[in-house]
Protein backbone atom coordinates (compact mmCIF):
# COMPACT_ATOMS: atom_id res chain seq x y z
CA UNK A 1 0.00 0.00 0.00
CA UNK A 2 2.77 2.36 0.93
CA UNK A 3 4.28 1.27 -2.33
CA UNK A 4 1.19 2.42 -4.21
CA UNK A 5 1.11 5.74 -2.37
CA UNK A 6 4.75 6.40 -3.11
CA UNK A 7 4.07 5.44 -6.62
CA UNK A 8 1.25 7.96 -6.85
CA UNK A 9 3.72 10.58 -5.70
CA UNK A 10 6.32 9.47 -8.21
CA UNK A 11 3.78 9.49 -10.97
CA UNK A 12 2.73 13.00 -10.18
CA UNK A 13 6.35 14.09 -9.85
CA UNK A 14 7.01 12.65 -13.27
CA UNK A 15 4.03 14.67 -14.40
CA UNK A 16 2.18 11.76 -15.90
CA UNK A 17 -1.20 13.33 -15.29
CA UNK A 18 -0.01 16.72 -16.52
CA UNK A 19 -0.39 19.82 -14.39
CA UNK A 20 -4.09 20.64 -14.53
CA UNK A 21 -4.64 23.21 -17.23
CA UNK A 22 -7.93 22.42 -18.89
CA UNK A 23 -11.08 21.31 -17.14
CA UNK A 24 -10.80 17.90 -18.81
CA UNK A 25 -7.35 17.18 -17.47
CA UNK A 26 -8.35 18.45 -14.04
CA UNK A 27 -11.28 15.99 -14.12
CA UNK A 28 -8.88 13.25 -15.15
CA UNK A 29 -6.57 14.04 -12.25
CA UNK A 30 -9.53 14.02 -9.87
CA UNK A 31 -10.62 10.66 -11.27
CA UNK A 32 -7.08 9.36 -10.91
CA UNK A 33 -6.93 10.36 -7.26
CA UNK A 34 -10.40 9.04 -6.46
CA UNK A 35 -9.50 5.72 -8.10
CA UNK A 36 -6.38 5.37 -5.98
CA UNK A 37 -8.15 6.33 -2.78
CA UNK A 38 -10.98 3.85 -3.39
CA UNK A 39 -8.69 1.00 -4.44
CA UNK A 40 -6.30 1.51 -1.56
CA UNK A 41 -9.12 1.90 0.97
CA UNK A 42 -10.59 -1.32 -0.43
CA UNK A 43 -7.26 -3.08 -0.08
CA UNK A 44 -6.98 -1.90 3.53
CA UNK A 45 -10.49 -3.22 4.23
CA UNK A 46 -9.58 -6.48 2.45
CA UNK A 47 -6.39 -6.85 4.41
CA UNK A 48 -7.82 -5.81 7.76
CA UNK A 49 -9.03 -9.30 8.77
CA UNK A 50 -5.51 -10.63 8.11
CA UNK A 51 -3.95 -7.80 10.08
CA UNK A 52 -6.33 -8.50 12.94
CA UNK A 53 -5.46 -12.19 12.78
CA UNK A 54 -1.74 -11.45 12.94
CA UNK A 55 -2.13 -8.97 15.80
CA UNK A 56 -4.27 -11.38 17.80
CA UNK A 57 -1.77 -14.18 17.21
CA UNK A 58 0.99 -12.17 18.93
CA UNK A 59 -1.15 -10.92 21.80
CA UNK A 60 -1.19 -13.66 24.46
CA UNK A 61 -4.43 -13.87 26.36
CA UNK A 62 -6.56 -12.30 23.66
CA UNK A 63 -10.10 -13.61 23.83
CA UNK A 64 -13.36 -13.01 22.11
CA UNK A 65 -14.41 -10.47 24.72
CA UNK A 66 -10.94 -9.16 25.57
CA UNK A 67 -9.98 -7.87 22.12
CA UNK A 68 -6.33 -7.01 21.52
CA UNK A 69 -5.14 -3.45 20.94
CA UNK A 70 -4.52 -2.48 17.33
CA UNK A 71 -0.90 -1.83 18.22
CA UNK A 72 0.06 -4.64 20.59
CA UNK A 73 1.66 -3.29 23.74
CA UNK A 74 3.38 -6.53 24.65
CA UNK A 75 3.78 -8.64 21.51
CA UNK A 76 4.92 -12.20 22.06
CA UNK A 77 5.23 -15.42 20.10
CA UNK A 78 3.87 -17.40 23.03
CA UNK A 79 0.65 -18.37 21.20
CA UNK A 80 2.79 -19.96 18.47
CA UNK A 81 4.82 -21.82 21.05
CA UNK A 82 1.65 -23.10 22.68
CA UNK A 83 0.22 -24.07 19.29
CA UNK A 84 3.20 -26.25 18.46
CA UNK A 85 3.87 -27.65 21.94
CA UNK A 86 0.40 -28.27 23.37
CA UNK A 87 -1.07 -29.59 20.12
CA UNK A 88 0.37 -31.94 17.48
CA UNK A 89 0.56 -29.02 15.06
CA UNK A 90 3.97 -29.88 13.63
CA UNK A 91 2.48 -33.21 12.56
CA UNK A 92 -0.65 -31.50 11.24
CA UNK A 93 1.33 -29.05 9.08
CA UNK A 94 3.53 -31.87 7.77
CA UNK A 95 0.43 -33.94 6.94
CA UNK A 96 -1.08 -31.08 4.98
CA UNK A 97 2.17 -30.35 3.16
CA UNK A 98 2.61 -34.02 2.25
CA UNK A 99 -0.94 -34.43 0.96
CA UNK A 100 -0.85 -31.16 -1.01
CA UNK A 101 2.54 -31.98 -2.53
CA UNK A 102 1.45 -35.47 -3.64
CA UNK A 103 -1.88 -34.22 -5.01
CA UNK A 104 -0.13 -31.47 -6.95
CA UNK A 105 2.54 -33.76 -8.37
CA UNK A 106 0.06 -36.43 -9.41
CA UNK A 107 -2.35 -33.88 -10.91
CA UNK A 108 0.48 -32.39 -12.94
CA UNK A 109 1.17 -35.84 -14.43
CA UNK A 110 -2.44 -36.92 -15.01
CA UNK A 111 -3.53 -33.52 -16.33
CA UNK A 112 -0.64 -32.97 -18.70
CA UNK A 113 -0.73 -36.47 -20.20
CA UNK A 114 -4.51 -36.35 -20.69
CA UNK A 115 -4.28 -32.83 -22.10
CA UNK A 116 -1.63 -34.03 -24.58
CA UNK A 117 -3.88 -36.91 -25.64
CA UNK A 118 -6.84 -34.59 -26.22
CA UNK A 119 -4.75 -32.02 -28.05
CA UNK A 120 -2.27 -34.09 -30.07
CA UNK A 121 -3.45 -37.69 -30.32
CA UNK A 122 -6.68 -37.88 -32.34
CA UNK A 123 -8.66 -41.10 -31.83
CA UNK A 124 -12.15 -42.28 -32.49
CA UNK A 125 -14.67 -40.96 -29.94
CA UNK A 126 -12.27 -38.34 -28.66
CA UNK A 127 -14.93 -35.62 -28.49
CA UNK A 128 -17.25 -37.86 -26.50
CA UNK A 129 -14.55 -38.89 -24.04
CA UNK A 130 -13.56 -35.25 -23.55
CA UNK A 131 -17.19 -34.25 -22.90
CA UNK A 132 -17.43 -36.90 -20.17
CA UNK A 133 -14.19 -35.66 -18.63
CA UNK A 134 -15.61 -32.13 -18.54
CA UNK A 135 -18.93 -33.30 -17.09
CA UNK A 136 -17.09 -34.60 -14.02
CA UNK A 137 -16.34 -30.96 -13.20
CA UNK A 138 -20.06 -30.44 -12.68
CA UNK A 139 -20.52 -33.29 -10.25
CA UNK A 140 -20.50 -31.90 -6.74
CA UNK A 141 -18.20 -33.80 -4.40
CA UNK A 142 -21.14 -34.22 -2.07
CA UNK A 143 -22.91 -36.48 -4.57
CA UNK A 144 -19.97 -38.83 -4.31
CA UNK A 145 -19.46 -38.87 -0.57
CA UNK A 146 -21.51 -41.90 0.35
CA UNK A 147 -20.41 -44.24 -2.47
CA UNK A 148 -16.79 -43.11 -2.16
CA UNK A 149 -16.94 -43.75 1.55
CA UNK A 150 -18.26 -47.27 0.94
CA UNK A 151 -15.76 -47.92 -1.86
CA UNK A 152 -12.80 -46.94 0.28
CA UNK A 153 -14.21 -48.84 3.24
CA UNK A 154 -14.36 -51.95 1.03
CA UNK A 155 -10.72 -51.49 0.06
CA UNK A 156 -9.81 -50.84 3.69
CA UNK A 157 -8.52 -47.37 2.84
CA UNK A 158 -10.50 -45.37 5.37
CA UNK A 159 -8.36 -43.49 7.84
CA UNK A 160 -5.34 -43.59 5.51
CA UNK A 161 -3.52 -41.01 3.44
CA UNK A 162 -4.15 -43.06 0.32
CA UNK A 163 -7.88 -42.87 0.95
CA UNK A 164 -7.70 -39.10 1.24
CA UNK A 165 -5.52 -38.83 -1.86
CA UNK A 166 -7.02 -41.22 -4.42
CA UNK A 167 -10.12 -39.15 -5.30
CA UNK A 168 -7.94 -36.10 -5.94
CA UNK A 169 -5.63 -37.78 -8.48
CA UNK A 170 -7.39 -36.58 -11.63
CA UNK A 171 -8.73 -33.07 -12.08
CA UNK A 172 -10.99 -32.19 -15.00
CA UNK A 173 -10.28 -28.53 -14.34
CA UNK A 174 -6.54 -29.16 -14.70
CA UNK A 175 -6.98 -31.21 -17.87
CA UNK A 176 -9.14 -28.48 -19.41
CA UNK A 177 -6.67 -25.76 -18.43
CA UNK A 178 -3.66 -27.61 -19.87
CA UNK A 179 -5.45 -28.73 -23.04
CA UNK A 180 -6.23 -25.12 -23.86
CA UNK A 181 -2.57 -24.28 -23.30
CA UNK A 182 -1.25 -27.17 -25.41
CA UNK A 183 -3.64 -26.22 -28.22
CA UNK A 184 -1.77 -22.93 -28.43
CA UNK A 185 1.66 -24.53 -28.82
CA UNK A 186 2.41 -24.29 -32.56
CA UNK A 187 2.18 -27.66 -34.29
CA UNK A 188 5.19 -26.77 -36.43
CA UNK A 189 7.30 -27.48 -33.36
CA UNK A 190 5.93 -31.04 -33.16
CA UNK A 191 6.51 -31.57 -36.85
CA UNK A 192 10.08 -30.36 -36.67
CA UNK A 193 10.69 -32.76 -33.80
CA UNK A 194 9.01 -35.61 -35.69
CA UNK A 195 11.33 -35.03 -38.64
CA UNK A 196 14.22 -35.28 -36.21
CA UNK A 197 12.88 -38.70 -35.30
CA UNK A 198 11.18 -37.84 -32.01
CA UNK A 199 8.22 -39.93 -30.87
CA UNK A 200 5.22 -38.70 -28.88
CA UNK A 201 6.92 -39.18 -25.54
CA UNK A 202 9.89 -37.06 -26.54
CA UNK A 203 7.66 -34.38 -28.08
CA UNK A 204 5.62 -34.35 -24.88
CA UNK A 205 8.62 -33.92 -22.60
CA UNK A 206 10.91 -31.80 -24.75
CA UNK A 207 8.57 -29.69 -26.87
CA UNK A 208 5.16 -29.38 -25.23
CA UNK A 209 5.89 -29.24 -21.50
CA UNK A 210 8.56 -26.50 -21.71
CA UNK A 211 6.13 -24.40 -23.75
CA UNK A 212 3.23 -24.47 -21.29
CA UNK A 213 5.08 -23.39 -18.15
CA UNK A 214 2.61 -20.59 -17.22
CA UNK A 215 -0.33 -22.99 -17.38
CA UNK A 216 1.60 -25.57 -15.34
CA UNK A 217 2.40 -22.92 -12.72
CA UNK A 218 -1.28 -21.94 -12.60
CA UNK A 219 -2.24 -25.57 -12.11
CA UNK A 220 0.31 -25.91 -9.30
CA UNK A 221 -1.30 -22.99 -7.46
CA UNK A 222 -4.85 -24.26 -7.91
CA UNK A 223 -4.05 -27.92 -7.10
CA UNK A 224 -1.98 -27.10 -4.06
CA UNK A 225 -4.62 -24.63 -2.86
CA UNK A 226 -7.52 -27.03 -3.27
CA UNK A 227 -5.68 -29.79 -1.42
CA UNK A 228 -4.28 -27.52 1.31
CA UNK A 229 -7.72 -26.08 2.02
CA UNK A 230 -9.90 -29.12 1.38
CA UNK A 231 -12.14 -29.87 4.27
CA UNK A 232 -15.10 -32.15 3.64
CA UNK A 233 -13.35 -35.26 2.26
CA UNK A 234 -10.40 -35.30 4.71
CA UNK A 235 -12.87 -34.69 7.54
CA UNK A 236 -14.70 -37.86 6.58
CA UNK A 237 -11.74 -40.09 5.72
CA UNK A 238 -9.05 -39.06 8.21
CA UNK A 239 -10.47 -39.89 11.61
CA UNK A 240 -7.29 -40.42 13.66
CA UNK A 241 -5.90 -37.24 15.24
CA UNK A 242 -2.36 -38.03 14.01
CA UNK A 243 -3.57 -38.03 10.38
CA UNK A 244 -5.44 -34.72 10.60
CA UNK A 245 -4.86 -31.91 8.15
CA UNK A 246 -4.73 -28.19 8.91
CA UNK A 247 -8.31 -27.13 8.16
CA UNK A 248 -9.67 -29.97 10.29
CA UNK A 249 -7.26 -29.30 13.14
CA UNK A 250 -8.17 -25.61 13.02
CA UNK A 251 -11.88 -26.37 13.13
CA UNK A 252 -11.23 -28.68 16.10
CA UNK A 253 -9.14 -26.00 17.85
CA UNK A 254 -12.10 -23.71 17.68
CA UNK A 255 -14.18 -26.25 19.57
CA UNK A 256 -11.59 -27.05 22.22
CA UNK A 257 -9.95 -23.72 22.88
CA UNK A 258 -13.04 -21.62 22.64
CA UNK A 259 -11.47 -18.82 24.63
CA UNK A 260 -7.87 -19.08 23.38
CA UNK A 261 -8.22 -16.91 20.34
CA UNK A 262 -4.53 -16.10 20.30
CA UNK A 263 -3.70 -19.78 19.72
CA UNK A 264 -6.46 -20.21 17.13
CA UNK A 265 -5.27 -17.14 15.23
CA UNK A 266 -1.66 -18.34 15.38
CA UNK A 267 -2.87 -21.55 13.71
CA UNK A 268 -4.66 -19.47 11.07
CA UNK A 269 -1.52 -17.48 10.30
CA UNK A 270 0.47 -20.71 9.99
CA UNK A 271 -2.08 -22.05 7.52
CA UNK A 272 -1.89 -19.01 5.26
CA UNK A 273 1.90 -18.69 5.00
CA UNK A 274 2.65 -21.58 2.59
CA UNK A 275 -0.15 -20.47 0.23
CA UNK A 276 1.09 -16.90 0.33
CA UNK A 277 4.63 -18.05 -0.49
CA UNK A 278 3.33 -20.16 -3.36
CA UNK A 279 1.26 -17.28 -4.72
CA UNK A 280 4.19 -14.87 -4.61
CA UNK A 281 6.35 -17.44 -6.39
CA UNK A 282 3.77 -18.09 -9.09
CA UNK A 283 1.88 -14.81 -9.36
CA UNK A 284 3.47 -13.56 -12.53
CA UNK A 285 2.37 -16.77 -14.24
CA UNK A 286 -1.16 -16.96 -12.86
CA UNK A 287 -2.83 -14.10 -14.72
CA UNK A 288 -0.93 -15.13 -17.84
CA UNK A 289 -1.96 -18.76 -17.36
CA UNK A 290 -5.66 -17.92 -17.01
CA UNK A 291 -5.44 -15.51 -19.93
CA UNK A 292 -3.92 -18.08 -22.25
CA UNK A 293 -6.36 -20.81 -21.23
CA UNK A 294 -8.89 -19.35 -23.64
CA UNK A 295 -11.34 -18.69 -20.80
CA UNK A 296 -11.07 -14.98 -21.46
Amino acid at each position, binding site marked *: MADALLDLGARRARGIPKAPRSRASRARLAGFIVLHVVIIAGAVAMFFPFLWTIITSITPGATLTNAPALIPTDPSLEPYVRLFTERPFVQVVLNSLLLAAITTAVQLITSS*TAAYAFSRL*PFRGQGFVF*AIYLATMMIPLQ*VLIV*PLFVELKTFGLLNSYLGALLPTFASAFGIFLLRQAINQVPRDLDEAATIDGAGHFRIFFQVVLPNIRPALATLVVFSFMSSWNSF*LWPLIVLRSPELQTLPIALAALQGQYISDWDVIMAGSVV*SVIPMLALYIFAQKYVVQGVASSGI*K
Partner: protein
Amino acid sequence: MTAPAARLALDGRPRDPKSRPVRSRRNRARYALVVLAFLLPSAIPLLAFTLGPMIAALWVSLNQWNLLAPMKFIGLGNYAKLLSDPQTGDVFLHTLYYVAGYLPIVYIGGLALALALNTALKGRSLLRGIYFLPVVTSWIVVALVWRWLLSPSSGVVNTVLGFFGIAGPGWWTDPNWAMPSIIIASAWKDLGFVMIILLAGLQAIPTDMYDASKMDGAGWWRRLFSITLPLLSPSTFFVLVISLINGFQVFDQVYAMTGGGPNGASEVVVEQIYDMTFRYGEAGEASALSWILFVVILAVTVIQVRGQRRWVTYG
Protein backbone atom coordinates in the same frame (compact mmCIF):
# COMPACT_ATOMS: atom_id res chain seq x y z
CA MET B 1 -15.56 -30.22 -29.54
CA THR B 2 -17.54 -33.00 -31.22
CA ALA B 3 -17.17 -31.69 -34.74
CA PRO B 4 -13.47 -32.51 -35.19
CA ALA B 5 -13.98 -35.88 -33.55
CA ALA B 6 -16.76 -36.73 -35.97
CA ARG B 7 -14.33 -36.24 -38.81
CA LEU B 8 -11.88 -38.75 -37.44
CA ALA B 9 -11.05 -41.67 -39.65
CA LEU B 10 -11.28 -45.25 -38.53
CA ASP B 11 -7.59 -45.67 -37.96
CA GLY B 12 -7.63 -42.94 -35.38
CA ARG B 13 -5.87 -40.32 -37.48
CA PRO B 14 -7.49 -37.16 -38.80
CA ARG B 15 -8.69 -37.66 -42.34
CA ASP B 16 -6.16 -35.60 -44.15
CA PRO B 17 -5.64 -36.97 -47.65
CA LYS B 18 -2.32 -35.25 -48.16
CA SER B 19 -0.41 -36.66 -45.26
CA ARG B 20 -2.37 -39.74 -44.35
CA PRO B 21 0.15 -42.50 -43.88
CA VAL B 22 -0.58 -46.04 -44.90
CA ARG B 23 -0.69 -47.78 -41.57
CA SER B 24 -0.15 -51.40 -40.90
CA ARG B 25 -2.07 -53.22 -38.23
CA ARG B 26 1.06 -53.24 -36.09
CA ASN B 27 1.45 -49.48 -36.34
CA ARG B 28 -2.18 -49.02 -35.44
CA ALA B 29 -1.80 -51.18 -32.35
CA ARG B 30 1.27 -49.22 -31.37
CA TYR B 31 -0.60 -45.92 -31.83
CA ALA B 32 -3.47 -47.21 -29.65
CA LEU B 33 -0.94 -48.08 -26.96
CA VAL B 34 0.47 -44.55 -27.09
CA VAL B 35 -3.02 -43.06 -26.72
CA LEU B 36 -3.76 -45.36 -23.80
CA ALA B 37 -0.45 -44.51 -22.13
CA PHE B 38 -1.36 -40.83 -22.20
CA LEU B 39 -5.01 -41.27 -21.26
CA LEU B 40 -5.08 -44.00 -18.61
CA PRO B 41 -3.34 -42.06 -15.79
CA SER B 42 -6.35 -39.73 -15.69
CA ALA B 43 -9.06 -42.11 -16.92
CA ILE B 44 -8.53 -44.67 -14.17
CA PRO B 45 -8.95 -42.27 -11.20
CA LEU B 46 -11.85 -40.48 -12.89
CA LEU B 47 -13.68 -43.75 -13.55
CA ALA B 48 -12.90 -45.26 -10.17
CA PHE B 49 -13.44 -42.22 -7.96
CA THR B 50 -15.85 -39.92 -9.80
CA LEU B 51 -17.98 -41.59 -12.47
CA GLY B 52 -18.26 -44.95 -10.70
CA PRO B 53 -19.34 -43.51 -7.34
CA MET B 54 -21.79 -41.25 -9.14
CA ILE B 55 -23.62 -44.20 -10.68
CA ALA B 56 -23.42 -45.99 -7.33
CA ALA B 57 -25.03 -42.97 -5.61
CA LEU B 58 -28.00 -43.35 -7.92
CA TRP B 59 -28.41 -46.96 -6.76
CA VAL B 60 -27.99 -46.02 -3.09
CA SER B 61 -30.70 -43.38 -3.48
CA LEU B 62 -33.20 -46.15 -4.28
CA ASN B 63 -32.52 -47.89 -0.99
CA GLN B 64 -33.04 -47.42 2.68
CA TRP B 65 -29.65 -47.62 4.31
CA ASN B 66 -27.94 -46.46 7.49
CA LEU B 67 -24.39 -47.34 6.27
CA LEU B 68 -24.27 -50.36 8.62
CA ALA B 69 -27.25 -52.68 8.12
CA PRO B 70 -27.82 -54.22 4.67
CA MET B 71 -29.54 -51.99 2.11
CA LYS B 72 -33.26 -52.33 1.62
CA PHE B 73 -34.64 -51.51 -1.83
CA ILE B 74 -37.52 -49.03 -1.60
CA GLY B 75 -37.67 -47.71 -5.17
CA LEU B 76 -38.40 -44.00 -5.28
CA GLY B 77 -39.36 -43.94 -1.61
CA ASN B 78 -36.50 -41.61 -0.61
CA TYR B 79 -37.44 -39.15 -3.35
CA ALA B 80 -41.11 -39.23 -2.33
CA LYS B 81 -40.14 -38.64 1.29
CA LEU B 82 -37.87 -35.72 0.39
CA LEU B 83 -40.45 -34.07 -1.86
CA SER B 84 -43.12 -34.22 0.84
CA ASP B 85 -40.79 -32.97 3.58
CA PRO B 86 -41.07 -29.19 4.02
CA GLN B 87 -37.45 -29.08 5.19
CA THR B 88 -36.29 -29.95 1.67
CA GLY B 89 -37.94 -26.79 0.37
CA ASP B 90 -36.38 -24.82 3.22
CA VAL B 91 -32.82 -25.96 2.53
CA PHE B 92 -33.21 -25.17 -1.17
CA LEU B 93 -34.64 -21.74 -0.31
CA HIS B 94 -31.71 -21.01 1.99
CA THR B 95 -29.31 -22.08 -0.76
CA LEU B 96 -31.09 -19.83 -3.27
CA TYR B 97 -30.98 -16.96 -0.78
CA TYR B 98 -27.22 -17.47 -0.53
CA VAL B 99 -26.73 -17.55 -4.30
CA ALA B 100 -28.95 -14.51 -4.90
CA GLY B 101 -27.13 -12.47 -2.28
CA TYR B 102 -23.62 -13.62 -3.11
CA LEU B 103 -23.53 -13.54 -6.90
CA PRO B 104 -24.28 -9.84 -7.58
CA ILE B 105 -21.79 -8.73 -4.92
CA VAL B 106 -18.87 -10.80 -6.20
CA TYR B 107 -19.57 -10.10 -9.86
CA ILE B 108 -20.01 -6.32 -9.61
CA GLY B 109 -17.24 -6.03 -7.02
CA GLY B 110 -14.90 -8.28 -9.01
CA LEU B 111 -15.60 -6.37 -12.22
CA ALA B 112 -14.95 -3.00 -10.57
CA LEU B 113 -11.70 -4.32 -9.12
CA ALA B 114 -10.56 -5.84 -12.40
CA LEU B 115 -11.28 -2.58 -14.26
CA ALA B 116 -9.42 -0.55 -11.65
CA LEU B 117 -6.44 -2.88 -11.41
CA ASN B 118 -6.14 -3.11 -15.17
CA THR B 119 -5.35 0.61 -15.40
CA ALA B 120 -1.84 1.96 -15.19
CA LEU B 121 -1.70 1.86 -11.41
CA LYS B 122 1.75 1.03 -10.21
CA GLY B 123 2.05 -1.13 -7.16
CA ARG B 124 -0.85 -2.95 -8.71
CA SER B 125 0.74 -6.36 -8.35
CA LEU B 126 0.86 -5.76 -4.60
CA LEU B 127 -2.78 -4.64 -4.66
CA ARG B 128 -3.76 -7.67 -6.75
CA GLY B 129 -1.93 -9.84 -4.25
CA ILE B 130 -3.87 -8.34 -1.34
CA TYR B 131 -7.19 -8.80 -3.07
CA PHE B 132 -6.23 -12.38 -4.03
CA LEU B 133 -5.03 -13.33 -0.53
CA PRO B 134 -8.47 -14.40 0.78
CA VAL B 135 -8.87 -16.74 -2.23
CA VAL B 136 -5.90 -18.85 -1.16
CA THR B 137 -6.96 -18.88 2.49
CA SER B 138 -8.73 -21.89 3.95
CA TRP B 139 -12.46 -21.50 4.54
CA ILE B 140 -11.97 -22.64 8.08
CA VAL B 141 -9.65 -19.69 8.76
CA VAL B 142 -11.90 -17.21 6.97
CA ALA B 143 -14.89 -18.46 8.92
CA LEU B 144 -13.01 -18.20 12.22
CA VAL B 145 -11.92 -14.64 11.52
CA TRP B 146 -15.32 -13.51 10.28
CA ARG B 147 -17.14 -15.08 13.21
CA TRP B 148 -14.98 -12.91 15.36
CA LEU B 149 -15.27 -9.75 13.25
CA LEU B 150 -19.04 -10.19 13.27
CA SER B 151 -19.28 -11.15 16.90
CA PRO B 152 -22.41 -9.37 18.24
CA SER B 153 -21.06 -8.01 21.51
CA SER B 154 -17.37 -7.33 20.90
CA GLY B 155 -16.83 -7.77 17.16
CA VAL B 156 -14.99 -5.15 15.18
CA VAL B 157 -17.90 -4.54 12.82
CA ASN B 158 -20.40 -3.83 15.57
CA THR B 159 -17.84 -1.72 17.42
CA VAL B 160 -17.35 0.43 14.32
CA LEU B 161 -21.11 0.61 13.75
CA GLY B 162 -21.54 1.62 17.40
CA PHE B 163 -19.04 4.40 16.84
CA PHE B 164 -21.50 5.87 14.34
CA GLY B 165 -24.37 5.37 16.74
CA ILE B 166 -25.77 2.32 14.95
CA ALA B 167 -26.72 -0.70 17.03
CA GLY B 168 -25.32 -3.63 15.04
CA PRO B 169 -27.39 -6.79 14.59
CA GLY B 170 -26.64 -10.17 16.16
CA TRP B 171 -25.08 -11.39 12.86
CA TRP B 172 -24.52 -15.15 12.91
CA THR B 173 -26.30 -15.55 16.25
CA ASP B 174 -29.52 -14.08 14.87
CA PRO B 175 -31.68 -16.26 12.55
CA ASN B 176 -32.40 -13.27 10.31
CA TRP B 177 -28.75 -12.26 10.00
CA ALA B 178 -27.05 -15.66 9.84
CA MET B 179 -27.27 -15.94 6.05
CA PRO B 180 -26.20 -12.33 5.38
CA SER B 181 -23.16 -12.99 7.61
CA ILE B 182 -22.24 -16.02 5.50
CA ILE B 183 -22.78 -14.02 2.29
CA ILE B 184 -20.51 -11.17 3.45
CA ALA B 185 -17.68 -13.54 4.38
CA SER B 186 -18.08 -15.49 1.12
CA ALA B 187 -18.04 -12.36 -1.01
CA TRP B 188 -14.93 -11.14 0.78
CA LYS B 189 -13.23 -14.46 0.10
CA ASP B 190 -14.18 -14.90 -3.56
CA LEU B 191 -13.85 -11.33 -4.83
CA GLY B 192 -10.21 -11.94 -5.78
CA PHE B 193 -11.04 -15.05 -7.81
CA VAL B 194 -13.61 -13.20 -9.92
CA MET B 195 -11.15 -10.33 -10.25
CA ILE B 196 -8.38 -12.59 -11.62
CA ILE B 197 -10.63 -14.26 -14.20
CA LEU B 198 -12.02 -10.91 -15.41
CA LEU B 199 -8.56 -9.34 -15.37
CA ALA B 200 -7.30 -12.05 -17.69
CA GLY B 201 -10.29 -11.36 -19.94
CA LEU B 202 -9.65 -7.61 -19.93
CA GLN B 203 -6.04 -8.16 -20.93
CA ALA B 204 -7.16 -10.07 -23.99
CA ILE B 205 -9.12 -7.05 -25.31
CA PRO B 206 -7.04 -5.27 -27.95
CA THR B 207 -6.27 -1.69 -26.91
CA ASP B 208 -6.74 -0.30 -30.43
CA MET B 209 -10.49 -0.82 -30.01
CA TYR B 210 -10.43 1.69 -27.19
CA ASP B 211 -8.26 4.11 -29.16
CA ALA B 212 -10.70 4.05 -32.07
CA SER B 213 -13.67 4.70 -29.82
CA LYS B 214 -11.87 7.48 -27.96
CA MET B 215 -11.31 9.16 -31.31
CA ASP B 216 -15.06 8.97 -31.83
CA GLY B 217 -15.46 10.84 -28.55
CA ALA B 218 -17.02 7.99 -26.58
CA GLY B 219 -16.91 8.55 -22.81
CA TRP B 220 -15.87 6.08 -20.13
CA TRP B 221 -19.37 4.66 -19.49
CA ARG B 222 -20.05 4.42 -23.20
CA ARG B 223 -16.83 2.45 -23.73
CA LEU B 224 -17.68 0.22 -20.78
CA PHE B 225 -21.05 -0.75 -22.20
CA SER B 226 -20.23 -0.84 -25.90
CA ILE B 227 -16.73 -2.39 -25.85
CA THR B 228 -15.61 -3.75 -22.51
CA LEU B 229 -18.70 -5.62 -21.36
CA PRO B 230 -19.51 -7.27 -24.72
CA LEU B 231 -15.89 -8.36 -25.21
CA LEU B 232 -15.74 -9.53 -21.62
CA SER B 233 -18.88 -11.63 -21.99
CA PRO B 234 -17.04 -14.99 -22.32
CA SER B 235 -15.26 -14.33 -18.99
CA THR B 236 -18.51 -13.18 -17.44
CA PHE B 237 -20.14 -16.37 -18.66
CA PHE B 238 -17.35 -18.49 -17.16
CA VAL B 239 -17.62 -16.65 -13.83
CA LEU B 240 -21.40 -17.07 -13.73
CA VAL B 241 -21.26 -20.79 -14.53
CA ILE B 242 -18.52 -21.51 -11.98
CA SER B 243 -20.07 -19.28 -9.30
CA LEU B 244 -23.48 -20.86 -9.67
CA ILE B 245 -22.05 -24.40 -9.56
CA ASN B 246 -20.05 -23.48 -6.45
CA GLY B 247 -22.91 -21.44 -4.98
CA PHE B 248 -25.33 -24.36 -5.03
CA GLN B 249 -22.64 -26.50 -3.40
CA VAL B 250 -22.01 -24.02 -0.56
CA PHE B 251 -20.92 -25.99 2.52
CA ASP B 252 -17.58 -25.21 4.18
CA GLN B 253 -18.49 -21.69 5.29
CA VAL B 254 -21.89 -22.74 6.61
CA TYR B 255 -20.39 -25.67 8.48
CA ALA B 256 -17.70 -23.49 10.03
CA MET B 257 -19.66 -20.28 10.67
CA THR B 258 -23.10 -21.35 11.81
CA GLY B 259 -23.36 -25.14 11.47
CA GLY B 260 -26.69 -24.46 9.75
CA GLY B 261 -28.09 -22.57 12.72
CA PRO B 262 -29.41 -20.77 14.59
CA ASN B 263 -32.57 -22.88 14.54
CA GLY B 264 -31.74 -24.17 11.06
CA ALA B 265 -31.94 -20.64 9.63
CA SER B 266 -28.85 -21.17 7.47
CA GLU B 267 -29.18 -24.91 6.80
CA VAL B 268 -28.27 -25.35 3.12
CA VAL B 269 -28.62 -28.39 0.87
CA VAL B 270 -25.13 -29.82 1.28
CA GLU B 271 -25.14 -29.24 5.04
CA GLN B 272 -28.36 -31.27 5.05
CA ILE B 273 -26.75 -34.05 2.96
CA TYR B 274 -23.84 -34.13 5.39
CA ASP B 275 -26.08 -34.26 8.45
CA MET B 276 -28.33 -36.95 6.96
CA THR B 277 -25.37 -39.18 6.12
CA PHE B 278 -23.13 -38.82 9.09
CA ARG B 279 -25.44 -37.65 11.87
CA TYR B 280 -28.77 -39.35 11.22
CA GLY B 281 -27.53 -42.41 9.28
CA GLU B 282 -29.89 -41.90 6.35
CA ALA B 283 -27.50 -42.56 3.48
CA GLY B 284 -30.23 -43.45 0.99
CA GLU B 285 -32.11 -40.23 1.57
CA ALA B 286 -28.85 -38.26 1.47
CA SER B 287 -27.97 -39.80 -1.90
CA ALA B 288 -31.42 -38.95 -3.22
CA LEU B 289 -30.97 -35.35 -2.09
CA SER B 290 -27.50 -35.34 -3.70
CA TRP B 291 -28.99 -36.41 -7.00
CA ILE B 292 -31.76 -33.83 -6.79
CA LEU B 293 -29.08 -31.19 -6.21
CA PHE B 294 -26.97 -32.52 -9.10
CA VAL B 295 -29.95 -32.39 -11.46
CA VAL B 296 -30.71 -28.81 -10.35
CA ILE B 297 -27.08 -27.73 -10.95
CA LEU B 298 -26.99 -29.50 -14.30
CA ALA B 299 -30.27 -27.84 -15.34
CA VAL B 300 -29.01 -24.40 -14.30
CA THR B 301 -25.76 -24.98 -16.21
CA VAL B 302 -27.52 -26.25 -19.34
CA ILE B 303 -29.88 -23.25 -19.28
CA GLN B 304 -26.84 -20.96 -19.04
CA VAL B 305 -25.05 -22.73 -21.88
CA ARG B 306 -28.18 -22.55 -24.05
CA GLY B 307 -28.81 -18.92 -23.15
CA GLN B 308 -25.26 -17.80 -23.78
CA ARG B 309 -25.87 -17.37 -27.53
CA ARG B 310 -28.05 -14.38 -26.74
CA TRP B 311 -25.43 -12.37 -24.93
CA VAL B 312 -22.01 -13.97 -25.11
CA THR B 313 -19.86 -12.93 -28.03
CA TYR B 314 -16.78 -14.98 -28.76
CA GLY B 315 -14.10 -12.98 -30.51
